[in-house]
């Protein structure tokens, strides 16, 4: 598989990964799950790092929180990134705390003021990290206080903060169903030059007009088609297959990840 195809690393198959060294371009890890774990975990990561590039995908930064930014946490993430020579740190365009943690990704009100507020905080994080912050378009099930379209909101944040985008294709699909917009139009409207890498994952259907981004199932055909479309629009970008629940054996995930490779070759071959 090419270097441009990644998998989300699960502790469940860490031992297999280190001994078998499967054919994966890079692994994505959540810094929150590793930073507090101490030297045994760090040794495992050192081993992994010798064989693969790593990217970090954070969970708890809460970039758009009404609570103050946790700068100590940002510095802990920076030390971790430096320690393992990790260039890419992505997070969610979201918040997960308001007067304390709620530990889940909540929808930012799509307003100009919220976009500016979020952009200011992103700038501060980039300053502390001495790296660009890459932000992912999240799945959302409700749009409280919405005044702008999601696309306008995202574009404003990216421009004001001068930061990068992680394009989660499954989230675009989920949101297009949940909020009745055209997924292709949304993808076409994103700035190519800011897209650093992508995510793809499975979702579950709660109702025909309400999908939930569970990362607990195989990727749907409609989402694979949308990935093709995104590559055609923006050029091929590194892409991670995410899986967090109902985790199949590693071999099966690798097989699914090969489809990313296939999509990338189709688009590149067509050029």
């Amino acid at each position, binding site marked *: 598989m090419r270097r441009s195809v990644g998998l989300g690393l699960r502790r469940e198959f860490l031992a297999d990964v280190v001994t078998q060294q499967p054919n994966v371009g890079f692994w994505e890890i959540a810094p*929150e*799950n590793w*930073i*507090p*774990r*101490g*030297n045994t975990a760090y*040794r495992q990561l050192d081993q992994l790092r010798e064989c693969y590039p790593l990217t970090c995908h954070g*969970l*708890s*930064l*809460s970039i*758009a*929180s*009404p609570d103050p930014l*946790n700068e100590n*946490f940002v510095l802990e993430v920076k030390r971790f990134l430096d320690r393992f020579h990790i260039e890419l740190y992505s997070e969610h365009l979201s*918040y997960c*705390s*308001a*007067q*304390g*943690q*709620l*530990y*889940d990704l*909540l*929808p*930012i*009100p799509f*307003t100009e*003021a*919220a976009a500016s*507020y979020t952009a200011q905080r992103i700038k501060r994080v980039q300053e502390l990290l001495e790296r660009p912050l890459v932000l992912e378009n999240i799945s959302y*099930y*409700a749009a*409280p*206080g919405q005044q702008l379209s999601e696309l306008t909101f995202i574009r404003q944040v990216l421009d004001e903060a001068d930061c990068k985008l992680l394009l989660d294709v499954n989230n675009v699909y989920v949101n297009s169903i949940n909020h009745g917009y055209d997924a292709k139009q949304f993808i076409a409207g994103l700035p190519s030059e800011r897209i650093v890498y992508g995510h793809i994952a499975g979702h579950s259907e*709660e*109702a025909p007009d*309400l999908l*939930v981004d569970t990362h607990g199932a195989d990727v749907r055909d409609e989402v694979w088609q949308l990935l093709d479309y995104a590559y055609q629009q923006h050029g091929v970008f590194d892409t991670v297959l995410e899986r967090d629940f109902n985790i199949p054996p590693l071999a099966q995930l690798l097989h699914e990840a090969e489809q990313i490779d296939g999509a990338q070759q189709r688009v590149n071959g067509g050029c």
Partner: protein
Amino acid sequence: MTDFKAVQEEFARWLRNPDDNNTPNGIEARRMAVYRRLVRNNIFSFLSTGFPVLKKLLSQQQWQQLVDEFVAKHAAQSPYFSDMGREFVDFLAVYFSSRNSDNADFPEFTYELAFYERMEVDAQFAVLDDDIESLEQAQATALVGQWRWRLNASVQVAQFKHPVAWLGSGHQREPLLPEAVNNSGFILMVYRHPQRNSVEFMQLQPMTALVISSLQQQPQGQSLAQLQQQLQQWLPQLDNATINQGVAQLCIDFIHRGVLLQAP
């Protein structure tokens, strides 16, 4: 407060406590229900893993009540999921700080058991130095007077009114409930064995607890003679020979168990 922050606060307030707050303006109930379910299931899952004995000993309704109240009332600060259990114990300290109509039906040991189960988790994930080894009894006996000793970094000691380590029959080796010591309750030590990587517990006699306490105050380590002198100061009512012999015996045992490690 800016408008969007008010919207966020309202959204979060409802998620924490949907019964006492209005559904955020104009949002379908089934969509809010997705968020409520995601938040609640995630926290339930983490806490159920972190507090298996407490969950087992409470009724399902009581366990749900505690987790729901945690979600509703506790402002958890740590961004690390692995700290959620500590946040929960902090919350329970407040929740059980006085007996009232909300918590009257819970067993007396609820808070203490949660505190103890968190000690086990902390011991499991404590950062130990690489390459440490516990010694055989004979080596320990030969070296106890020669080296300086420090505590295994995972060691934690706390005193309980209730025999929390034996509740829920998690420890089959100790089928009988022990006696409380001198009415001072149960002094329990939890630690991770450096080689077996298993979390162990011991009930401590008061003199043993003093030895641990002395070592906790001297993180750079102490010799056997220093430990004996410290205990002589703290226990003037006992004769020195008894103390010296007791401390030496104890240290040999702790070296063998991997509780005491050679100080650098």
